[in-house]
């Protein structure tokens, strides 16, 4: 029995390997330029727990690629977007990025929203010398993987400092409680940088409590937070939990402002949270009502393409990542990995939907954050914070 199964096993895998033998790939970026199209790979969480973020970012990327192709393509060729779903699961990005690079021969990779999945794919892109641009992974470690890895968003240390300064300057809060999602590395990172920034600005943390993302009942912790009498509460988590936290805080009579980061941004925040979210603040990458031409035309194009949906920050960043890639390829005059990488690293004041992007030495984007407040059930732009 064992022998039979081993033979079958060996046979199946041999077939698989032989199949792969037909398209050998070297380390230099594959044959993505052949056949008249430039192949760009994208990996995103189109299904699974974080499907909403992945779907948004994918739509933004798709829109950008379509616009470029409509305008005649790039370097005389059309762009072909090859998207793979990583199911919001750890372990998948490694497989799909290997697939995109080795089998499909893409010249660059766009992705991902979640820092943990970006971190999984980054070493593979780095090893194969394929430039990778993450639309919205905010963990600093992503770009530290290597010099082929970039991002078009600001990083958590910046965002944390932004909110710390916002708390002291605008909210005039001297004592803040911090409520962190212990299941999310994004939340923990943001909380850490906020606490550092806030302490530097002379503030005092009255209480630090944790919850598990996906929990429905926060009253126990909120009661403890209330007992510490803060001037405001920092909740660096995702909108589903934030909405419930706001509701329950109000029920408990915790009537101080709550504020957080870009994880708050979703129209579901108001739908789920209702009145309880009114008056609270959060930082994010862009706002659809910022009055620049670039934002207005992007919003219009997106609504036309996707049945009237208003693009959120993920969509805008997905769009920007693709646009930046195209711009870098144009400047480099080629799709060669090394040249595109150099062009990306040299990016200065690139006019993106989410602001003017300059890529710094660490391959992160130096750009401004915006702070929004919930007013009348809508997100109203409050102020811009420059780095």
């Amino acid at each position, binding site marked *: 029995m064992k022998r039979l199964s081993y033979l079958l096993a060996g046979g199946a895998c041999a077939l698989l390997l032989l199949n792969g033998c037909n398209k050998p790939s070297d380390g230099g970026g594959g044959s993505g330029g052949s056949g008249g199209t430039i192949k760009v790979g994208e990996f995103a969480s189109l299904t699974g727990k974080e499907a909403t973020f992945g779907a948004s970012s994918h739509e933004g990327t798709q829109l950008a690629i379509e616009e470029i192709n409509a305008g005649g393509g790039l370097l005389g060729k059309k762009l072909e977007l090859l998207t793979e779903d990583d199911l919001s699961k750890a372990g998948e990005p490694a497989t799909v990025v290997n697939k995109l690079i080795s089998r499909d021969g893409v010249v660059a990779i766009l992705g991902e929203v979640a820092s943990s999945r970006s971190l999984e794919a980054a070493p593979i892109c780095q090893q194969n010398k394929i430039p990778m641009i993450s639309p919205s992974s905010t963990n600093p470690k992503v770009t530290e993987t290597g010099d082929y890895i970039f991002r078009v968003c600001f990083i958590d240390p910046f965002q944390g400092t932004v909110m710390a300064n916002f708390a002291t300057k605008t909210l005039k809060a001297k004592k803040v409680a911090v409520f962190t999602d212990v299941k999310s590395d994004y939340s923990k990172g943001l909380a850490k940088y906020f606490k550092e920034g806030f302490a530097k600005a002379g503030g005092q943390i009255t209480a630090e409590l944790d919850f598990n993302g996906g929990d429905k009942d926060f009253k126990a912790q909120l009661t403890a937070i209330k007992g510490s009498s803060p001037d405001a509460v920092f909740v660096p988590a995702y909108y589903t939990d934030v909405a419930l936290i706001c509701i329950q805080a109000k029920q408990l009579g915790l009537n101080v402002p709550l504020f957080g980061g870009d994880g708050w941004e979703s129209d579901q925040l108001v739908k*789920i949270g209702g009145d309880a979210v009114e008056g609270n603040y959060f930082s994010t990458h862009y706002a659809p009502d910022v009055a620049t031409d670039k934002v207005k035309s992007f919003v219009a194009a997106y609504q036309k393409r996707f049945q009237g949906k208003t693009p959120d920050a993920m969509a805008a960043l997905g769009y920007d990542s693709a646009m930046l890639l195209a711009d870098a390829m144009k400047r480099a005059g080629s799709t060669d990995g090394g040249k595109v990488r150099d062009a990306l690293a040299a990016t200065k004041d690139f006019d993106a939907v989410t602001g003017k992007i300059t890529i710094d030495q660490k391959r992160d984007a130096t750009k401004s954050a915006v702070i929004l407040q919930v007013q009348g059930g809508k997100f109203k732009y409050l102020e811009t914070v420059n780095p």
Partner: protein
Amino acid sequence: MDWFFQQLINGLALGSIYALIALGYTMVYGVLRFINFAHSDVLMLGAFAAYFIAPAAAHLFPPPSYLGALFVMVLAAGICAVIGILIELLAYRPLRDRPKLTVLITAIGVSLFIEFTCQHHAVFGASTKPFPNLLPQHDFRLAGLAVNSTDLVVPLMTVVLLAALWFIVQKTKIGTAMRAVSFNHQAAALMGVSINRVISFTFGLGSALAAIAGILYALKAPGIEPLMGVQPGLRAFIAAVLGGIGNLPGAALGGLVLGLLETFAGGMPAISNYRDGIAFAILILILLFKPAGLLGKTQVEKV
């Protein structure tokens, strides 16, 4: 002291919901001696049923109103009772004579099937949906504590439902039949009890309770999504074991105790991270030291 009473109120509300769900688990275990993994998903289906019924109900009873909420709950409970009966008919009944393991695996399969089908974008989609506010909300202060009207309604409803359940099980014919079947299958059959009918009824009743629990849960935490039943379901199962599986008052007691323990633990900064694990730790402890549960009787395994 304030903190203690505040947590007490929070805990009671949570515990009542666990109790309602636990009742379903324990009833099914009582008559069939197996754990219906899919019970937690009936909870979710109840919440979604209410989500879709609510706009229609809003025409008849403009929300928020108690009557409107009751209307929605009754309808949703009815739908889920039917779903529960169907699940039993299609998935468990054909396997009635098979080894327990087979049915257990099937139950897991049914649970996963419901969860992932609902996650598919053609059905409900994976993202969280806002649950409508069905009950009139009053926030008031009771001796310095913040109390929300929902926090009072939930335990009240649970008590009423428990009383109704007690009545059904103790005083009606079908209830007596349920108790007979859970005591001894074969003897009950010999006495002319239709086993199939009793089992269907049990599933229907348990599912109806789960649906109401799901709606109450969604009222407290107004974001619903296809996987929302997993955690409460697991906790409720542990509660049922805690109280003594197969024992109705035990399930209610277990639910309350677990709800309170979780709430108090959640408010203590040192342990709050481990909240997920606390329920399981309790399960392991109970099974190690008093496997029959708080109110259960030890069962001797006959050879």
